[in-house]
């Protein structure tokens, strides 16, 4: 036992304290965001946004920006990283990467090509966010700024935390594993002000449609990621703060192709509500949610992963595959119940 303890001490002192195989922080460049734009020649324009630790440590008294961007033209992300290392003469690390932005041109062509590239790098955390930019990703990264948070990595954490805002349906890198149909946030930045503008709907990793900013909270309700949001019914003299209690319950009737979704919400009504205020809110939620589902059905995009809910109704995979979900998906009747 003593030998083992001695061995563990030696092991930890050699390997875990970074005496061996060490990397100096000063010699590294911490990339916090990568933007990808398409170029006419078939190459891609990669924009690397990296942190300037000295400017961050100076705080608000410092004159310099906490972030800097460099742009490289290349065919894939790895050779782009090599080129970047050459330009800025330091080793690039992606372990603090928080944001991966693609321009809409690339979204139309499809993100499938980039999936193995970004998923295979063990440095990139699966919690990095993926977004689509209005305009070029380069412009977005150059214009994005964080007046309330000097640490850029923290800024992206807050900005794209799905619990913080009802208007962002965050999509993390890890979601690429499970989904080919999804909605990515559409972001833009002008005059050093960054914002989101709804979402882009994808089928088989290709852009097919858009969702407005107003539709996003309802999409989040359906996917069970909403914290709370305010439904404005000022025309009727009241508004309501809706809080999602738990993830929706999905019940499938395979034979009749019916899907019943139950949403669990609590409502806090403000103003002068009429007697049937509760029904009015429920109807609004139901209609908005059904509109999103119909939009997705018309494009055959299974953004709510309803296909998975059908799996328990089959004994074997062969039976499940022969059911041919995508052929039947547009015909599925959805019913939404709201429970308070």
């Amino acid at each position: 036992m003593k030998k083992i303890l001695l061995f563990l001490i030696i092991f930890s002192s050699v390997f875990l304290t970074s005496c061996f195989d060490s990397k100096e922080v000063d010699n590294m460049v911490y990339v916090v965001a990568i933007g990808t734009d398409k170029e006419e020649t078939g190459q891609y324009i990669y924009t690397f946004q990296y942190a300037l630790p000295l400017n961050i440590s100076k705080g608000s008294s410092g004159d310099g920006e906490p972030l800097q961007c460099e742009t490289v033209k290349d065919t894939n992300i790895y050779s782009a990283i090599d080129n970047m290392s050459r330009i800025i003469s330091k080793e690039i690390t992606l372990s603090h990467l928080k944001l991966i932005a693609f321009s809409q041109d690339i979204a139309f062509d499809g993100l499938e090509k980039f999936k193995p590239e970004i998923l295979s790098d063990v440095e990139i955390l699966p919690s990095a966010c993926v977004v689509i930019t209005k305009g070029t990703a380069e412009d977005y990264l150059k214009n994005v700024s964080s007046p309330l948070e000097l640490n850029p990595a923290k800024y992206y954490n807050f900005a794209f935390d799905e619990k913080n805002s009802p208007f962002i349906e965050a999509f993390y890198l890890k979601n690429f594993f499970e989904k080919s149909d999804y909605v990515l946030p559409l972001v833009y930045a002008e005059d050093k002000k960054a914002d989101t503008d709804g979402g882009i709907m994808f089928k088989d990793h290709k852009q097919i449609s858009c969702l407005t900013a107003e539709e996003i909270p309802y999409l989040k309700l359906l996917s069970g990621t909403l914290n709370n949001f305010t439904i404005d019914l000022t025309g009727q003299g009241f508004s309501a703060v809706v809080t999602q209690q738990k993830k929706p319950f999905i019940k499938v009737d395979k034979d009749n192709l019916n899907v019943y979704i139950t949403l669990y919400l609590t409502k806090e009504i403000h103003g002068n509500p009429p007697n049937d205020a509760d029904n009015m809110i429920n109807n609004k939620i139901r209609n908005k949610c059904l509109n999103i589902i119909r939009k997705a059905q018309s494009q055959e995009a299974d953004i709510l992963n309803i296909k998975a809910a059908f799996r328990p109704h089959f004994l074997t995979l062969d039976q499940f595959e022969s059911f041919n979900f995508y052929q039947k998906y547009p015909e599925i009747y959805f019913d939404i119940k709201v429970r308070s």
Partner: protein
Amino acid sequence: MTLKSKEAVAVAINLICAKTFLMVPVYFKRLTESGSLITVLYVFTLAAVFLLIYLLSGKIKIPKFLYPIIAILMVLVCSINLFEYSTTVSALFFRTTPLFIIFLFFTLAMIIGAYSNIGKLNLFFVPVIYITVFLMLLFTFSDGNYYYLFPVLGKGFDAVFSDGFFMLSSLFEVIILFFIPDMLEDKKDVKKVTAYTLIFSFIIYLIITAGCLITVHTDLPENCFSPLFLILRQIKIGTYFQHPDTAFLIIYFLSAFLYLSGILYFASHILSKTWRKLSKKMLIIPFGLLILILGVNGENLMPATSYLNKALWIVPFIFPIFARRSFK
């Protein structure tokens, strides 16, 4: 050296389950694509049925002329796993470190472990390893999609039982259960040790394979070295615990260390039983070096590995049936 019943259970569990840190859960996943339960049930039912025969028929004595064959097989399996452990660690954590240094490091750990009291070591570290894994999996299960455990029969009985038959080879280490009784302090505990080992191993395989199914839904990337690492990387607890990689490195190293030293210990123990002049301690260093040499040439062993994967199931499941039985 004798083992107390708890120590024996810990040693056996680690030897059987250590491969959950390598690619075995992925093989299970690919076998069924869903229905983790059927795969693990299938594998362990066969193991349990055979061990039941063993327990009912009394103590099976494996003829001594088979001991060297088993020891050599153990060395071979150990060197293949040394190669896998070292390449995985190299690819995931120490990419700039020369691979040979990692091999050397694991070999050193293996030899020191084999000279130590493996019973106490396993009893102390095995619960730590698997409790940590389970706790980490708990955080990923909340984001998982349970529908991916279905359809419950996966690719169907035929596919699972025909294709999955050779997968029993990955449970080659079950053979340890035939050698542990000799080392037990209290021989009456044999049945208890066997039962506990099988139950706990079953639970560990079930939970890790289920985690693999519900968290990583589509097929894993080609460069995936350890599905457990891939699953655990998805943990994000607040802003401050974003890199669970370090915790994984420690439990991965501990598991590899206990597995390699355990196999080396048993290979030496089994061979030392053949000739009285050979002592277990004499054999550990030569076997360790042999494992290092074979492990370093792991890529050349790959053709042999594919044959071993198809044939190794014979050893734990069929082999002892032909062995001489001595009824008391």
